[in-house]
């Protein structure tokens, strides 16, 4: 078994509700509540789930845009393992910043409108003082070619408003890759793009992952995108991972009732198709101090009061080879 590039252990993010100077917070929003996963070198893991389930929070913690409130994130860095949630050393932080990069969702807002494409792409090099100015120019040009913005010199000194959405997202990819990262968090990088250019951006990311041996954490709510991009998929619900398996395994044989409901909601391009009724009921429950029972209990079609209603949230267990599910009852259901 090879060393994991990224290993997440019991990662947790809690936000205090109504904190004041005189009273420490009693209530917490459990945005991410003890999740575990690992990503191997060159592998891409998809993180899917509905809005507010904590997938973006997870991604932002992995790049240290948010402070971790519990658990650890281990990053393998040329043979060494660093816990990125507790970096104190400046050199470690610097290495971390060139190992881990992020691609943002909104290509229109993720570039400073007053800086040129060159400034944006070269920013990681500039702030980390890597290379000289001619070096950086050459590197930026190389990456522009790599992401398909050619000829590079005609794109280098344009401003973001002179580019289309797809071109901007290519610039964002170039910026993420300029420091030769080993791990990239991609937060719905194609959700704001036109359908027509989505596929080319996804192809580009796949191609680059393949050639540069980059691992992705690919955050999305679109199962079709996840299927196209990811080797494995983790399904999140209310701060917990409820199912984790290889892409085709998960899509072909979903075990957790939530995953099954998600899959049944995927649009099918057939007008005569009769959609089976979606099994789950109600809306997403609140994540402030959740009750000690299965997170999905209120909405679950197969929940049993004597098991799911009284025991803690089920642990993630390997129910089939490489297929992890967090449910007490799933063994009793036909797969």
């Amino acid at each position: 078994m090879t060393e994991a590039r990224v290993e997440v252990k019991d990662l947790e993010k809690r936000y205090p509700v109504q904190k004041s100077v005189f009273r420490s917070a009693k209530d917490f929003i459990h945005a991410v509540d003890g999740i575990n996963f690992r990503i191997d070198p060159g592998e891409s893991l998809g993180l899917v789930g509905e809005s507010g389930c904590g997938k973006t929070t997870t991604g932002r913690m992995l790049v240290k845009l948010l402070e971790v409130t519990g658990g650890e994130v281990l990053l393998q860095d040329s043979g060494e393992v660093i816990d990125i949630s507790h970096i104190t050393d400046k050199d470690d932080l610097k290495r971390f910043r060139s190992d881990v990069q992020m691609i943002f969702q909104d290509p229109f807002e993720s570039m400073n409108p007053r800086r040129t494409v060159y400034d944006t792409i070269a920013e990681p090099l500039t702030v980390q003082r890597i290379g000289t100015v001619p070096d950086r120019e050459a590197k930026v040009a190389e990456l522009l070619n790599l992401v398909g913005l050619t000829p590079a010199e005609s794109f280098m000194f344009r401003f973001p408003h002179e580019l289309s959405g797809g071109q901007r997202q290519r610039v964002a990819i170039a910026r993420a890759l300029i420091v030769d990262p080993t791990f990239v968090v991609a937060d719905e990088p194609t959700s704001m793009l036109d359908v027509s250019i989505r596929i080319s951006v996804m192809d580009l990311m796949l191609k680059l992952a393949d050639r540069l041996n980059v691992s992705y954490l690919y955050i999305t709510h679109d199962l079709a995108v996840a299927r196209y991009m990811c080797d494995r998929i983790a399904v999140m619900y209310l701060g917990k991972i409820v199912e984790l398996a290889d892409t085709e395994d998960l899509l072909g044989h979903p075990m957790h009732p939530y995953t099954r409901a998600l899959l049944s909601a995927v649009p099918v391009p057939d007008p005569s198709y009769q959609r089976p009724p979606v099994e789950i009921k109600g809306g997403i429950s609140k994540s402030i101090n959740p009750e000690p029972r299965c997170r999905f209990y209120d909405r679950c079609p197969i929940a049993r009061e004597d098991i799911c209603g009284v025991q803690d949230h089920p642990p993630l267990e390997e129910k089939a080879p490489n297929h992890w599910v967090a449910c007490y009852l799933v063994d009793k259901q036909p797969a």
Partner: protein
Amino acid sequence: MALEQKPPDLEIGPPITGLEGSDDEPIIAITEPLWRIRLRLLWRSFKKNWGLFAENRIGLVGLFVIAIFAVMAIAHPILMATAWGGDNREIYDPVIGYDAVVKEFTVVEEVTDPLSEIELIDARFTNINAQVGDVIEQPQQPASPSSRHLLGTDPLGRDVLSQLMFSTRAAFFLGMVAALVTVFIATTVGSIAAFFRGFVDAFLMRVADLILLMPLIPILIVIGGFWTIELWQLGVIIGILNGFGGVAIVLRSQALAVSVKPFVDAARVAGGSRWHLIFRHVIPNVLPLSFLYMMFGVTEAISLEAILSFFGLLNVEMSWGLMISIAQAEGYLLRGLDVWWLLFPAGLAVTFLAAAFFLVGRAMDEVVNPRLRKR
């Protein structure tokens, strides 16, 4: 340039090989140095913004008025060296010049025409032996406009036009100092408050509230009571009070909107320090609004100068406010149109220059804020 310092231990990664388009020859040919490209981009965006600005008439009117005053300010030293120089200097110097126009008056019992007749009791101040019916020569100060003094003279016999032109320089100087200090402080304070939030934000904004609550003119009168304020000191005081007060609050809200944008997060992921984020990402996106408030700041400084000079609290050789102050001190303020040249040139100059900067500010507002544009 700090960017070009290359620490020895860090190397740029090896070129990525085996990709389409990566032949062995260098991929690009950027021959121009970076600073020249940046200069060209700056020039291009300036031209574009100028186009937007020029579409707006009120901005052009404002610029035109400012240009007239600028010509006046520049013309004064030239005139002092030529037409008003040499022997004429004693007459036309705005501060120490003196020229009493001598005019003949008929001494009468009761004045019907104040321009050619004088009452007996007033005539005896000049000549104790004056009788009704005599014609006496009386020096005039203030004197009404003539070919010698186009805007007349003030109560101390000094040329009003010369004073007016000389004061323009002080007005520009004060406006610039006040505006620059305001913008510098307000942009920094606003951006830092917005970026760090929490305690820093609360502290700076409460200071801003306090300063906003303080009545500016009474404070300046109190300060003026302790020591005589120089012109540049007034500029700095106005700048500090404005910069920590109202303008800081406005710029902070703008900076707040900027600092939650994803590009700031992107720069953070790239490894940028806090100061990099503030100075490279937040402040450049706040600056257009800062420049706008700079224009309004000039307006305010010019008006305040007139007020303080009027109270005689400013240590300044000559200014528009001082011109009105002298007219008031000599009792001409309420004489109205009889002595219009003592009040109107200075008063209108303050009004027009202040208004001109305000108009330019309004036009810039439309450049900065696309929602205000007509199309």
